[in-house]
Protein backbone atom coordinates (compact mmCIF):
# COMPACT_ATOMS: atom_id res chain seq x y z
CA UNK A 1 0.00 0.00 0.00
CA UNK A 2 2.69 2.37 1.04
CA UNK A 3 4.82 1.28 -1.83
CA UNK A 4 1.96 1.99 -4.17
CA UNK A 5 1.62 5.43 -2.62
CA UNK A 6 5.31 5.98 -3.26
CA UNK A 7 4.67 5.12 -6.88
CA UNK A 8 6.31 1.72 -6.64
CA UNK A 9 3.68 -0.75 -7.71
CA UNK A 10 4.35 -4.39 -6.90
CA UNK A 11 3.36 -7.17 -9.26
CA UNK A 12 0.84 -9.31 -7.40
CA UNK A 13 0.10 -12.62 -9.11
CA UNK A 14 -2.86 -13.69 -7.03
CA UNK A 15 -5.72 -11.27 -6.75
CA UNK A 16 -9.31 -12.34 -6.15
CA UNK A 17 -11.77 -9.96 -7.83
CA UNK A 18 -13.51 -7.61 -5.42
CA UNK A 19 -11.46 -8.81 -2.47
CA UNK A 20 -8.69 -6.63 -1.02
CA UNK A 21 -5.18 -7.88 -1.64
CA UNK A 22 -4.35 -7.99 2.12
CA UNK A 23 -7.39 -10.23 2.75
CA UNK A 24 -6.41 -12.56 -0.12
CA UNK A 25 -2.87 -12.84 1.23
CA UNK A 26 -4.20 -13.37 4.73
CA UNK A 27 -6.36 -16.26 3.49
CA UNK A 28 -3.38 -17.73 1.64
CA UNK A 29 -1.26 -17.54 4.80
CA UNK A 30 -3.98 -19.19 6.86
CA UNK A 31 -4.46 -21.81 4.12
CA UNK A 32 -0.75 -22.66 4.10
CA UNK A 33 -0.81 -23.19 7.89
CA UNK A 34 -3.94 -25.37 7.85
CA UNK A 35 -2.81 -27.48 4.85
CA UNK A 36 0.68 -28.01 6.34
CA UNK A 37 -0.84 -28.96 9.67
CA UNK A 38 -3.29 -31.30 7.97
CA UNK A 39 -0.50 -32.98 5.98
CA UNK A 40 1.52 -33.38 9.15
CA UNK A 41 -1.40 -34.91 11.02
CA UNK A 42 -2.26 -37.34 8.22
CA UNK A 43 -0.67 -40.31 9.94
CA UNK A 44 0.77 -39.37 13.29
CA UNK A 45 3.49 -41.73 14.39
CA UNK A 46 5.12 -42.17 17.79
CA UNK A 47 8.51 -41.33 16.27
CA UNK A 48 7.82 -38.19 14.19
CA UNK A 49 9.28 -37.74 10.70
CA UNK A 50 9.00 -35.23 7.87
CA UNK A 51 6.14 -32.72 8.07
CA UNK A 52 4.87 -34.28 11.31
CA UNK A 53 8.24 -33.56 12.88
CA UNK A 54 8.15 -29.95 11.70
CA UNK A 55 4.58 -29.37 12.94
CA UNK A 56 5.33 -31.04 16.28
CA UNK A 57 8.44 -28.94 16.69
CA UNK A 58 6.40 -25.76 16.12
CA UNK A 59 3.68 -26.80 18.56
CA UNK A 60 6.20 -27.88 21.16
CA UNK A 61 8.19 -24.68 20.81
CA UNK A 62 5.16 -22.41 21.21
CA UNK A 63 3.91 -24.53 24.14
CA UNK A 64 7.28 -24.10 25.85
CA UNK A 65 7.13 -20.34 25.24
CA UNK A 66 3.66 -20.13 26.81
CA UNK A 67 4.98 -22.03 29.84
CA UNK A 68 8.00 -19.75 30.02
CA UNK A 69 6.04 -16.51 29.93
CA UNK A 70 2.73 -17.50 31.53
CA UNK A 71 3.62 -20.35 33.82
CA UNK A 72 1.57 -23.53 34.03
CA UNK A 73 -1.54 -21.62 32.80
CA UNK A 74 0.17 -21.04 29.46
CA UNK A 75 -0.61 -24.23 27.50
CA UNK A 76 -4.34 -23.50 28.04
CA UNK A 77 -3.97 -20.66 25.51
CA UNK A 78 -1.99 -22.68 22.96
CA UNK A 79 -4.58 -22.43 20.12
CA UNK A 80 -4.55 -18.61 20.34
CA UNK A 81 -0.78 -18.20 20.52
CA UNK A 82 0.07 -20.91 18.03
CA UNK A 83 -2.34 -19.39 15.47
CA UNK A 84 -0.98 -15.93 16.23
CA UNK A 85 2.66 -16.93 15.86
CA UNK A 86 2.19 -19.09 12.77
CA UNK A 87 -0.08 -16.57 11.06
CA UNK A 88 2.30 -13.65 11.59
CA UNK A 89 5.39 -15.70 10.68
CA UNK A 90 3.89 -17.17 7.48
CA UNK A 91 2.39 -13.78 6.55
CA UNK A 92 5.76 -12.09 7.00
CA UNK A 93 7.54 -14.74 4.93
CA UNK A 94 4.93 -14.53 2.18
CA UNK A 95 6.23 -11.09 1.24
CA UNK A 96 9.63 -12.58 0.39
CA UNK A 97 8.14 -14.63 -2.47
CA UNK A 98 7.91 -12.66 -5.71
CA UNK A 99 4.28 -12.00 -6.64
CA UNK A 100 3.07 -12.22 -3.06
CA UNK A 101 2.71 -9.59 -0.37
CA UNK A 102 2.82 -9.81 3.43
CA UNK A 103 -0.67 -9.22 4.84
CA UNK A 104 1.13 -7.87 7.90
CA UNK A 105 2.32 -4.93 5.83
CA UNK A 106 -1.29 -3.75 6.03
CA UNK A 107 -2.11 -1.77 9.18
CA UNK A 108 -5.73 -3.02 9.33
CA UNK A 109 -4.61 -6.67 9.45
CA UNK A 110 -2.15 -5.93 12.25
CA UNK A 111 -4.69 -3.88 14.17
CA UNK A 112 -7.15 -6.78 13.90
CA UNK A 113 -4.59 -9.11 15.46
CA UNK A 114 -3.72 -6.57 18.17
CA UNK A 115 -7.40 -6.05 18.99
CA UNK A 116 -7.92 -9.81 19.34
CA UNK A 117 -5.08 -9.83 21.87
CA UNK A 118 -6.45 -6.70 23.58
CA UNK A 119 -9.96 -8.12 24.04
CA UNK A 120 -8.61 -11.57 24.96
CA UNK A 121 -6.45 -9.97 27.67
CA UNK A 122 -9.42 -8.26 29.33
CA UNK A 123 -11.83 -11.12 28.73
CA UNK A 124 -9.54 -13.71 30.36
CA UNK A 125 -8.54 -11.23 33.09
CA UNK A 126 -12.19 -10.59 34.06
CA UNK A 127 -13.01 -14.30 33.73
CA UNK A 128 -10.18 -15.16 36.09
CA UNK A 129 -10.52 -12.42 38.70
CA UNK A 130 -14.04 -11.09 38.27
CA UNK A 131 -14.91 -7.53 37.15
CA UNK A 132 -14.09 -5.84 40.46
CA UNK A 133 -11.01 -7.94 41.11
CA UNK A 134 -9.68 -7.23 37.64
CA UNK A 135 -10.23 -3.46 37.66
CA UNK A 136 -8.95 -3.22 41.23
CA UNK A 137 -5.56 -4.01 39.72
CA UNK A 138 -5.84 -0.74 37.71
CA UNK A 139 -6.10 1.33 40.91
CA UNK A 140 -2.61 0.64 42.25
CA UNK A 141 -1.64 -0.03 45.87
CA UNK A 142 -1.93 3.46 47.50
CA UNK A 143 -5.69 4.11 47.47
CA UNK A 144 -5.36 7.91 47.64
CA UNK A 145 -3.59 7.75 44.23
CA UNK A 146 -6.21 5.42 42.72
CA UNK A 147 -7.70 7.91 40.20
CA UNK A 148 -4.26 8.78 38.84
CA UNK A 149 -3.23 5.12 38.65
CA UNK A 150 -6.49 4.26 36.92
CA UNK A 151 -5.88 6.86 34.20
CA UNK A 152 -2.23 5.80 33.76
CA UNK A 153 -3.11 2.09 33.62
CA UNK A 154 -5.98 2.71 31.19
CA UNK A 155 -3.73 4.69 28.86
CA UNK A 156 -1.11 1.95 29.17
CA UNK A 157 -3.66 -0.71 28.24
CA UNK A 158 -4.94 1.32 25.26
CA UNK A 159 -1.44 1.96 23.99
CA UNK A 160 -0.61 -1.77 23.92
CA UNK A 161 -2.59 -2.65 20.75
CA UNK A 162 -1.30 0.48 19.06
CA UNK A 163 2.32 -0.41 19.84
CA UNK A 164 1.78 -4.02 18.74
CA UNK A 165 0.21 -2.87 15.47
CA UNK A 166 2.76 -0.23 14.58
CA UNK A 167 5.84 -2.27 15.51
CA UNK A 168 4.83 -5.14 13.24
CA UNK A 169 3.52 -2.85 10.51
CA UNK A 170 6.63 -0.69 10.17
CA UNK A 171 9.09 -3.57 10.39
CA UNK A 172 7.36 -5.57 7.68
CA UNK A 173 6.63 -2.50 5.61
CA UNK A 174 10.32 -1.55 5.69
CA UNK A 175 11.25 -5.01 4.43
CA UNK A 176 8.58 -4.86 1.69
CA UNK A 177 9.58 -1.36 0.62
CA UNK A 178 13.23 -2.35 0.48
CA UNK A 179 12.52 -5.39 -1.69
CA UNK A 180 10.17 -3.45 -3.98
CA UNK A 181 12.70 -0.65 -4.23
CA UNK A 182 15.45 -3.06 -5.23
CA UNK A 183 13.21 -4.66 -7.86
CA UNK A 184 12.17 -1.24 -9.21
CA UNK A 185 15.74 0.07 -9.21
CA UNK A 186 16.81 -2.92 -11.29
CA UNK A 187 14.48 -1.83 -14.09
CA UNK A 188 15.33 1.85 -13.58
CA UNK A 189 19.08 1.12 -13.93
CA UNK A 190 18.34 -1.03 -16.95
CA UNK A 191 16.41 1.72 -18.73
CA UNK A 192 18.55 4.71 -17.77
CA UNK A 193 21.10 5.90 -20.27
CA UNK A 194 24.57 5.81 -18.69
CA UNK A 195 28.03 4.38 -19.34
CA UNK A 196 27.84 0.59 -19.68
CA UNK A 197 30.40 -0.06 -16.92
CA UNK A 198 28.50 2.02 -14.35
CA UNK A 199 25.22 0.44 -15.43
CA UNK A 200 26.68 -3.08 -15.06
CA UNK A 201 28.06 -2.21 -11.61
CA UNK A 202 24.73 -0.79 -10.45
CA UNK A 203 22.81 -3.79 -11.78
CA UNK A 204 25.24 -6.23 -10.15
CA UNK A 205 25.00 -4.35 -6.83
CA UNK A 206 21.22 -4.49 -7.00
CA UNK A 207 21.29 -8.17 -7.97
CA UNK A 208 23.67 -9.12 -5.15
CA UNK A 209 21.89 -7.05 -2.51
CA UNK A 210 18.55 -8.80 -3.03
CA UNK A 211 19.47 -12.19 -1.42
CA UNK A 212 20.96 -10.36 1.56
CA UNK A 213 17.75 -8.37 2.02
CA UNK A 214 15.70 -11.58 1.65
CA UNK A 215 17.79 -13.24 4.39
CA UNK A 216 17.41 -10.20 6.59
CA UNK A 217 13.67 -10.23 5.80
CA UNK A 218 13.39 -13.87 6.91
CA UNK A 219 15.12 -13.01 10.17
CA UNK A 220 12.90 -9.97 10.72
CA UNK A 221 9.84 -12.10 9.93
CA UNK A 222 10.70 -14.57 12.67
CA UNK A 223 11.70 -11.94 15.22
CA UNK A 224 8.56 -9.86 14.69
CA UNK A 225 6.29 -12.92 14.94
CA UNK A 226 8.09 -13.88 18.13
CA UNK A 227 7.91 -10.37 19.61
CA UNK A 228 4.20 -10.00 18.86
CA UNK A 229 3.39 -13.45 20.32
CA UNK A 230 5.60 -13.10 23.40
CA UNK A 231 4.17 -9.65 24.20
CA UNK A 232 0.66 -11.07 23.84
CA UNK A 233 1.61 -13.89 26.22
CA UNK A 234 2.93 -11.37 28.74
CA UNK A 235 -0.22 -9.19 28.47
CA UNK A 236 -2.64 -12.09 28.92
CA UNK A 237 -0.39 -13.76 31.48
CA UNK A 238 -0.23 -10.64 33.66
CA UNK A 239 -4.02 -10.16 33.33
CA UNK A 240 -4.82 -13.64 34.65
CA UNK A 241 -2.13 -13.72 37.35
CA UNK A 242 -3.33 -13.01 40.89
CA UNK A 243 -1.57 -10.44 43.09
CA UNK A 244 -0.15 -13.07 45.46
CA UNK A 245 1.42 -14.90 42.50
CA UNK A 246 3.42 -11.81 41.46
Amino acid at each position, binding site marked *: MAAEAEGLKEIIFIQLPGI*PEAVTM*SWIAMGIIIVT*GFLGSFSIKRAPRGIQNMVEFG*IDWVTEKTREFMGENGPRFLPLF*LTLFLFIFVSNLLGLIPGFKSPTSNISVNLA*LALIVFFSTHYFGIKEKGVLGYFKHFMGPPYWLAPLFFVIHTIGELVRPVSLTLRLFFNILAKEVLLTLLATLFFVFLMLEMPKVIQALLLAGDFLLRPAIILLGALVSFIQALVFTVLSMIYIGSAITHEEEH
Partner: protein
Amino acid sequence: MINLNVDLGILAIQVITFLLGMILIWQVFLKKFSKKLAERSDYIKNTLESVARQKIEVEALKADFQKQLETIDKRYQEKIREATKEAMDIKNDIVLQAREESKSLLEKTGEKLEIEKEKMLKEMRIEVTNLALAIAEKVLKENIDKNRQEKIVEELLKEFEKK
Protein backbone atom coordinates in the same frame (compact mmCIF):
# COMPACT_ATOMS: atom_id res chain seq x y z
CA MET B 1 3.22 9.10 2.32
CA ILE B 2 2.59 5.94 4.27
CA ASN B 3 -1.08 5.07 4.46
CA LEU B 4 -2.02 4.75 8.14
CA ASN B 5 -5.78 4.72 7.52
CA VAL B 6 -7.56 1.74 9.01
CA ASP B 7 -9.95 -0.06 6.69
CA LEU B 8 -12.75 -1.30 8.94
CA GLY B 9 -13.86 -3.86 6.32
CA ILE B 10 -10.39 -5.46 6.17
CA LEU B 11 -10.16 -5.28 9.97
CA ALA B 12 -13.49 -7.10 10.42
CA ILE B 13 -12.65 -9.74 7.79
CA GLN B 14 -9.25 -10.25 9.38
CA VAL B 15 -10.77 -10.76 12.84
CA ILE B 16 -13.18 -13.34 11.39
CA THR B 17 -10.39 -14.97 9.34
CA PHE B 18 -8.20 -15.24 12.42
CA LEU B 19 -10.92 -16.64 14.68
CA LEU B 20 -12.09 -19.11 12.02
CA GLY B 21 -8.48 -20.04 11.29
CA MET B 22 -7.87 -20.64 14.99
CA ILE B 23 -10.90 -22.95 15.20
CA LEU B 24 -9.85 -24.77 12.02
CA ILE B 25 -6.26 -25.15 13.24
CA TRP B 26 -7.57 -26.61 16.49
CA GLN B 27 -9.99 -28.95 14.73
CA VAL B 28 -7.78 -29.99 11.80
CA PHE B 29 -4.53 -30.78 13.56
CA LEU B 30 -3.79 -29.06 16.85
CA LYS B 31 -6.28 -31.14 18.89
CA LYS B 32 -4.88 -34.35 17.38
CA PHE B 33 -1.29 -33.24 17.94
CA SER B 34 -1.93 -32.01 21.49
CA LYS B 35 -3.50 -35.37 22.35
CA LYS B 36 -0.65 -37.26 20.70
CA LEU B 37 2.00 -35.09 22.37
CA ALA B 38 0.33 -35.56 25.76
CA GLU B 39 0.13 -39.33 25.14
CA ARG B 40 3.77 -39.43 24.14
CA SER B 41 4.75 -37.33 27.12
CA ASP B 42 2.82 -39.73 29.40
CA TYR B 43 4.40 -42.70 27.62
CA ILE B 44 7.90 -41.26 28.09
CA LYS B 45 7.12 -40.38 31.72
CA ASN B 46 5.71 -43.85 32.41
CA THR B 47 8.62 -45.53 30.65
CA LEU B 48 11.12 -43.47 32.63
CA GLU B 49 9.28 -44.25 35.87
CA SER B 50 9.15 -47.93 34.96
CA VAL B 51 12.86 -47.90 34.14
CA ALA B 52 13.59 -46.17 37.45
CA ARG B 53 11.44 -48.74 39.29
CA GLN B 54 13.14 -51.60 37.47
CA LYS B 55 16.51 -50.09 38.26
CA ILE B 56 15.63 -50.02 41.96
CA GLU B 57 14.38 -53.62 41.75
CA VAL B 58 17.56 -54.69 39.94
CA GLU B 59 19.64 -52.90 42.58
CA ALA B 60 17.72 -54.72 45.33
CA LEU B 61 18.15 -58.04 43.51
CA LYS B 62 21.83 -57.32 43.03
CA ALA B 63 22.22 -56.55 46.71
CA ASP B 64 20.30 -59.73 47.56
CA PHE B 65 22.47 -61.80 45.23
CA GLN B 66 25.56 -60.20 46.68
CA LYS B 67 24.37 -61.10 50.15
CA GLN B 68 23.57 -64.63 49.04
CA LEU B 69 26.98 -64.92 47.41
CA GLU B 70 28.62 -63.72 50.58
CA THR B 71 26.61 -66.28 52.61
CA ILE B 72 27.48 -69.01 50.12
CA ASP B 73 31.11 -67.99 50.28
CA LYS B 74 31.06 -68.05 54.08
CA ARG B 75 29.38 -71.47 54.07
CA TYR B 76 31.85 -72.72 51.50
CA GLN B 77 34.78 -71.48 53.57
CA GLU B 78 33.25 -73.05 56.65
CA LYS B 79 32.71 -76.36 54.81
CA ILE B 80 36.29 -76.29 53.58
CA ARG B 81 37.48 -75.61 57.12
CA GLU B 82 35.31 -78.42 58.47
CA ALA B 83 36.47 -80.82 55.74
CA THR B 84 40.09 -79.86 56.33
CA LYS B 85 39.67 -80.39 60.05
CA GLU B 86 37.93 -83.70 59.47
CA ALA B 87 40.65 -84.78 57.06
CA MET B 88 43.30 -83.76 59.57
CA ASP B 89 41.53 -85.76 62.29
CA ILE B 90 41.27 -88.77 59.99
CA LYS B 91 44.93 -88.37 59.05
CA ASN B 92 45.92 -88.15 62.69
CA ASP B 93 43.80 -91.21 63.49
CA ILE B 94 45.33 -93.13 60.61
CA VAL B 95 48.84 -92.11 61.61
CA LEU B 96 48.13 -92.99 65.23
CA GLN B 97 46.61 -96.31 64.24
CA ALA B 98 49.56 -97.02 61.93
CA ARG B 99 51.95 -96.18 64.70
CA GLU B 100 50.10 -98.41 67.09
CA GLU B 101 49.96 -101.17 64.52
CA SER B 102 53.62 -100.83 63.73
CA LYS B 103 54.42 -100.78 67.43
CA SER B 104 52.38 -103.87 68.01
CA LEU B 105 53.95 -105.50 64.95
CA LEU B 106 57.38 -104.63 66.26
CA GLU B 107 56.48 -106.00 69.63
CA LYS B 108 55.13 -109.19 68.07
CA THR B 109 58.18 -109.49 65.85
CA GLY B 110 60.40 -108.91 68.84
CA GLU B 111 58.49 -111.57 70.71
CA LYS B 112 58.78 -113.96 67.77
CA LEU B 113 62.46 -113.22 67.49
CA GLU B 114 62.84 -113.85 71.18
CA ILE B 115 61.00 -117.13 70.83
CA GLU B 116 63.11 -118.06 67.82
CA LYS B 117 66.22 -117.06 69.68
CA GLU B 118 65.16 -119.13 72.63
CA LYS B 119 64.38 -121.98 70.31
CA MET B 120 67.72 -121.63 68.60
CA LEU B 121 69.54 -121.45 71.88
CA LYS B 122 67.67 -124.48 73.07
CA GLU B 123 68.55 -126.32 69.87
CA MET B 124 72.14 -125.16 70.19
CA ARG B 125 72.31 -126.40 73.72
CA ILE B 126 70.98 -129.69 72.60
CA GLU B 127 73.45 -129.79 69.77
CA VAL B 128 76.34 -128.75 71.99
CA THR B 129 75.30 -131.37 74.50
CA ASN B 130 75.08 -133.98 71.76
CA LEU B 131 78.46 -132.84 70.48
CA ALA B 132 79.97 -133.00 73.88
CA LEU B 133 78.54 -136.45 74.29
CA ALA B 134 79.89 -137.48 70.90
CA ILE B 135 83.33 -136.08 71.74
CA ALA B 136 83.31 -137.77 75.04
CA GLU B 137 82.28 -140.99 73.36
CA LYS B 138 85.05 -140.75 70.84
CA VAL B 139 87.63 -139.80 73.47
CA LEU B 140 86.62 -142.65 75.55
CA LYS B 141 86.67 -145.13 72.63
CA GLU B 142 90.07 -144.24 71.41
CA ASN B 143 93.29 -143.49 73.28
CA ILE B 144 94.81 -141.02 71.10
CA ASP B 145 97.63 -138.47 71.17
CA LYS B 146 97.33 -134.81 71.32
CA ASN B 147 97.52 -134.30 67.54
CA ARG B 148 94.94 -137.00 66.93
CA GLN B 149 92.74 -135.41 69.53
CA GLU B 150 92.88 -132.05 67.83
CA LYS B 151 92.12 -133.63 64.48
CA ILE B 152 89.09 -135.34 65.91
CA VAL B 153 87.84 -132.05 67.33
CA GLU B 154 88.33 -130.33 63.97
CA GLU B 155 86.41 -133.06 62.18
CA LEU B 156 83.63 -132.81 64.66
CA LEU B 157 83.53 -129.04 64.22
CA LYS B 158 83.42 -129.41 60.45
CA GLU B 159 80.58 -131.87 60.82
CA PHE B 160 78.87 -129.45 63.07
CA GLU B 161 79.32 -126.63 60.59
CA LYS B 162 77.93 -128.79 57.78
CA LYS B 163 74.87 -129.44 59.85
